């Protein structure tokens, strides 16, 4: 079956800067925004852009992510002749390999791409929060007659060294590309989102694979090689909310953005973010509870005080507990008298009675999934506290 465009979603990231949150969980599977996981954003973008075939490349801790994706039904990706496919590395008669880099991960799945014989392939990453219409990006790609189109947005120059930096000419073609330069000469940052013409993708991935010195990375190797070969490379300028939630601070900030009136509008009926819903009753606000400036999800029970916080599904905040400027992930329990201030509390963690986590104005504290902060103990601002290894 021939498709115009399919998407390949790189979801193998370990997310080591999220510490205990990603100890047993791939970064794209990290909960976000009350009901979602990070991967829901690129997946929903695909569906809303009219892409019905998505290969999801997993490597690090794939179980929970694979289970979450399932048959793809929550995103309407349970399709005949397409849909969502989880693609872990596999053994073939020429040998077996882990995914060595972003480019190698796609290279190892060229046969998957060929099955659908698309004209274009979108390469996406599974660790950003944003809403983008990839069909508009494809329009630019076609109009520009490009071999590859790179989505980019303007960032403060001081931060540009964290990204692939693009210098483009007036017509919108890339003239220079530098991956994470020490002294960036442009504030146009690559978002790690590419649309390739399928034949060019195959050509340059095959060449890259043949180069023993390559790190097999799109930003470091493939894009510079294409530029050197004189390929037409276009820029797609993106405006709107885009956030890498790869650190404790940025994950927390992105949630605070949700509570403020930010550019990240989750309420757009024409651009819904889909997720696999837990089956839970509405949340209960008990007598004496106090909830302000917060988001609360189904399955929660709130008896205490919740302010400027996001509570995920099935969280319990007992009477007398306080949760302020914090993120509490699914199934966590904040017992009576406990105080959680400026913290991220992982899935099913328990903050026992009278315990204190974080401090007003302090650095964000992180409590790992399944961890228990014992009664009347405290975890200071900036603490990283994981479940003890058994």
């Amino acid at each position, binding site marked *: 079956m021939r498709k115009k465009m399919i998407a390949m979603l790189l979801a193998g990231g370990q997310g080591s800067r999220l510490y205990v949150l990603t100890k047993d969980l791939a970064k794209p599977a990290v909960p976000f*925004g*009350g*009901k979602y996981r990070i991967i829901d954003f690129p997946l929903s973008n695909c569906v809303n852009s009219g892409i019905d075939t998505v290969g999801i490349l997993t490597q690090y801790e794939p179980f929970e992510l694979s289970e979450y994706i399932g048959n793809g*039904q*929550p995103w309407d990706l349970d399709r005949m002749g397409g849909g969502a496919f989880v693609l872990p590395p596999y053994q073939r008669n020429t040998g077996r390999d882990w995914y060595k880099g972003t480019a190698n991960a796609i290279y190892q799945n060229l046969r998957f791409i060929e099955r659908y014989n698309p004209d274009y392939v979108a390469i996406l990453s599974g660790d950003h929060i944003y809403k983008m219409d990839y069909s508009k990006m494809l329009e630019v790609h076609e109009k520009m007659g490009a071999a590859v189109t790179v989505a980019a947005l303007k960032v403060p120059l001081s931060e540009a060294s964290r990204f692939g930096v693009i210098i483009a000419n007036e017509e919108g073609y890339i003239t220079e590309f530098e991956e994470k330069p020490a002294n960036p000469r442009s504030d146009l940052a690559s978002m790690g989102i590419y649309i390739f013409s399928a034949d060019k993708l195959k050509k340059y991935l095959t060449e890259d694979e043949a180069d023993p010195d390559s790190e097999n990375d799109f930003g470091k190797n493939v894009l510079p090689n294409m530029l050197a070969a004189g390929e037409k490379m276009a820029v797609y300028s993106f405006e709107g909310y885009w956030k890498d939630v790869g650190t404790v601070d940025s994950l927390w900030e992105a949630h605070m953005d949700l509570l403020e009136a930010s550019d990240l509008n*989750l*309420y757009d009926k024409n651009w*819904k*973010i*889909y*997720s696999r*819903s837990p*089956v*839970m*009753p*509405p*949340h*209960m*606000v*008990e*007598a*004496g*509870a*106090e*909830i*302000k*400036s*917060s*988001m*609360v*999800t*189904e399955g929660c029970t709130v008896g205490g005080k*919740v302010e400027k916080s*996001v*509570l*995920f599904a099935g969280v319990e905040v007992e009477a007398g507990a306080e949760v302020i400027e914090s993120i509490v992930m699914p199934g966590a329990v904040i017992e009576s008298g406990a105080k959680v201030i400026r913290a991220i509390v992982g899935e099913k963690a328990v903050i026992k009675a009278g315990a204190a986590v974080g401090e007003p104005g302090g650095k964000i504290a992180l409590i790992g999934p399944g961890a228990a902060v014992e009664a009347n103990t405290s975890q200071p601002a900036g603490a990283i506290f994981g479940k003890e290894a058994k």
Partner: protein
Amino acid sequence: MKNGLLGIIVCNMHDDLIPQLTANRTLGSIPFGGRYRMIDFALSNMANSGIKDVGLVPSKNYQSLMNHVGNGQEWDMSRKNGGLSILPPYAGERGVYRGRMEALYGIREYIKASDAENVVLCDSDVVANIDLRPVIEQHKESGADITLVYKYSEVFKEKKQCAALFFDDYGKLLDLYLNPELDGKQNIYLDIAVIKKPLLDELIAECASKDEHSFVHSVLMAKKGVLNIRGYRFDGYCNKLTGLRNYLDSSLALLDPEVRKSLFPAERPIYTRVRDEVSARYGENAKVSETLVTDGCHIDGEVEKSVLFRGASVAKGAKVKGCVLMHNTTVGEGAALEWVITDKNVVIPAGTHLAGSEKYPLYIPKDTVL
């Protein structure tokens, strides 16, 4: 792993009890509890009890019902073989059935084609989380022809079609009183029955030939001496919908933690259609207590002792007490509502004051813009 069970849910029984809420929908598609429809309880009970083939029998106004259950996928009943079947009446036959036996006559071919040994028959008017597996087990072990599920409770205040069951010392059905003038607790039949399938086939044919249509009259009452009819007592939380006041009462009963525990145990979830709403949002002026709030709600006012459905919003300065606000109800700034049930998409403009009473709630129909 065949278990020899067929589920049948008759969706339009008792529509006349709540004419307000069933003006444009079946009783089964009445919204309940913030995110559910009445039928979710019967369907989820069947799904959680391992009943994989279920037929829904609507008779009229079933668009909202079909829209809600879809292909049955939320209940894991979207199957290649069997699964969920919606069985609307055939054209040419009487559309609106007079009773359960007539409804079953309309789908007799569907029932005949099943290779189930037992049929679990129920309506969609009961709010309860019932594990049907012990019921079926008892039915098989006791050798009963029919097993009736009942609850030991008060005779309904808004009484209609309230059947009290009486059993002999051996547990066989002795008698059945319809709308009895009795005080105190009785064994109230929940319109949930397990029947041997070959017997049901016979009873359907027999009732049709005699132009009889009622399961209670023509089967239970008429055959109580001939058939082995037994009872199963259910002791969890349960409400049989009997009218608008009962609708409000049972909605607000959800605010009781014991009721929620009985209705929503983690091991037997109540499934419903997924709507992909965003988490509920509380503004800086929100003041909420004793309230059930669903995803998609937006609250910046005061809410007390109420149930808010998906997408309901209460603006700053508005006060809501003792209310059920269905999907996308919008309460404007400074409005005040007490003991009001708003149907879907109702708009209450800023400053409007509306009040019913606890015993006589005010109902505002779907799509009303005040």
